[in-house]
């Protein structure tokens, strides 16, 4: 497509094939407004607008007063900007009997997410390290069960876990939920770390062994510092995953300790009272804010994180 003349000449002989291609590289410079470009960028911009509209509507709605919402259309920018819905969503919106807003759910989510991320990654990284470098008999069997388990619908395992947690007295507590998040984060994280540690040159590991370093010493002194990028990927994966969780939150916590997503759903979908759409949208944005910030700050690492969930070992 780029330069047919050169290429046609190149077909003459197999040996001559390579030489003309070594000439000027890249496509021939095109005019900026070719038909192809108009179509290409036009489509991309239209699609991009479609993806952006919901975010725009959310923000615009959250900045309007209720009278304005009743009169205007949802796409119109606010005539009178008010931050009252945000204040109300954060501090005074009601779920059931509690009227202290989403702030309660936010702090619950923080108290759930932070230890869950640390705990699940600590367990999974050591696990992946053991699987990659210290294989013992039967390790692969357990690992296979773990990976197969990642495909089992959560609904199959939620009730047995309720019983297990009740047995050890953690049902309905924060620590119970942290354990649940660690369990369900384990397959993908272990895979992530196992694959990373398996790609570390074996000589390094052997040299450390010869020098007399043991399991934990090699992990903390050699492997851990090298694996920092993969730790960042794992942290991104876990923060967004755990913050966005709804199912486990609703099952394994009590109304007082509901995470933000569950509380948000209760605020917006509660039947009593007049619906305050601006407050609802402010609350929705507030809940989505943490993963959005993680997404925009982390950029390519986020893509790596979700691709890690996709690429198999």
């Amino acid at each position, binding site marked *: 497509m780029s330069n047919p003349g050169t*290429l046609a000449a190149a*077909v003459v002989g197999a040996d001559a094939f390579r030489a003309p291609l070594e000439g000027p590289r890249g496509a021939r410079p095109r005019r900026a407004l070719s038909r192809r470009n108009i179509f290409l*960028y036009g489509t*991309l911009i239209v699609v*991009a607008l479609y*993806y*952006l509209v*919901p975010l725009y*509507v959310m923000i615009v*709605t959250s900045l309007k007063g209720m009278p304005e919402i009743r009169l205007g*259309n*949802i796409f119109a920018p606010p005539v009178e900007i008010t931050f009252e819905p945000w204040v109300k969503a954060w501090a005074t919106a009601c779920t059931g009997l509690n009227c202290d807003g989403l702030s309660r759910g936010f702090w619950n989510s923080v108290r759930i997410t932070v230890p869950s991320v640390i705990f699940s990654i600590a*367990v999974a990284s*050591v*696990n992946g*390290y*053991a699987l990659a470098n*210290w294989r*013992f008999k039967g*390790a692969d069997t*357990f690992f296979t*069960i773990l990976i197969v*388990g990642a*495909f*089992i*619908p*959560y*609904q*199959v395992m939620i009730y*047995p*876990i309720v019983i*297990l947690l009740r047995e050890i007295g953690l049902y309905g507590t924060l620590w119970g939920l942290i354990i649940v998040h*660690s*369990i369900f984060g*384990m397959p993908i994280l272990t895979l992530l770390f196992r694959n990373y540690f398996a790609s570390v040159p074996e000589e390094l590991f052997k040299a450390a062994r010869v020098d007399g370093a043991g*399991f934990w010493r090699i992990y903390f002194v050699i492997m851990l510092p090298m694996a920092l990028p993969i730790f960042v990927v794992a942290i991104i994966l876990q923060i*967004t995953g755990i*913050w*966005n*969780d*709804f*199912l486990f939150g*609703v*099952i394994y916590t009590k109304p007082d300790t509901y995470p933000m*997503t569950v509380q*948000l*759903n209760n605020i*917006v*979908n509660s039947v009593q009272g007049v619906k305050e*759409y601006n407050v*609802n949208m402010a609350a929705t944005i507030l*809940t*989505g804010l943490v*993963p*959005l910030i993680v*997404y925009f700050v982390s950029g390519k690492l*986020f*893509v790596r994180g979700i*691709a890690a969930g*996709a690429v198999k070992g």
Partner: protein
Amino acid sequence: MSISGNEVRRPSRLFRNLSAKIASIPMILTALFVFLGGTLWTVLYSFTNSKLLPRLKFVGLDQYERLWSAPRWLTSIENLLVYGVLSLIFSLVIGFLLAALLDQKIRFEGVFRTIFLYPFALSFVVTGLTWQWILNPDFGVQRLVRNAGWESFTFNPLYDQRIVIYGILIAGLWQGTGLVMCLMLAGLRGIDEDIWKAARVDGIPMWKTYMFIVIPMMRPVFITTLVIIASGIVRLYDLVVAQTSGGPGGASEVPAKYVYDYMFLAQNLGQGFAASTMMLVTVAIVVVPWAYLEFGRRR
């Protein structure tokens, strides 16, 4: 024989690699007691008549008979099928097309990719509530078009039993296509530049190159993506809860919601176990052939 020589020097098989074994205890416990044990437990108890508490009083296939004659379950399955098939087709097609467009050496690729993928960072609850608002008949798209002059325009998926599942589909696609695009883009980037050059030399039009050369070459990417989307579809729950709460009149119920409601709200554990076992069977139908093709051959 050096091998047998090593064997003699080993102190004990159990204590060999002890630290690694201790470090793997969480994984072993999870694999055995949660993933394997939990699954077997649920399947076993799905054959009992457990109500408020699980008890081992077997009633054969009673729960399954009741399940498959429950209108709510049949609606759930139908919804899941419609949502699943359409969501698979649309997200694969849209995801691939977006990836192909982004792969044309365009400017601002990073910006476009960021925009297409950001919904994926949002939770299903946030997605569901956002689209609930946009599709609101009194304030959203319907009213906008009516205000513009088309008075009889009706687009009210969330309050119309017949099309409510499509309203959920719109939200689901908005949230999930970015991921498919990302996976497809990675697949496209993995295709050797020389293939494109060769196709150009032969004068094959671009769409034909995609259809008959590139897509067949991306088979593994497609299959992996398919499995990821499919196992996500079966779990469809939060989106429905947030967007419609299963309504109107139970028209947007899904299996995962059936399981939750029967286990934790209706105190009918047996039904919940039977329904979740059916979900497991559904996933197995998708995953087992894939796993067999993907990993079985290598052994």
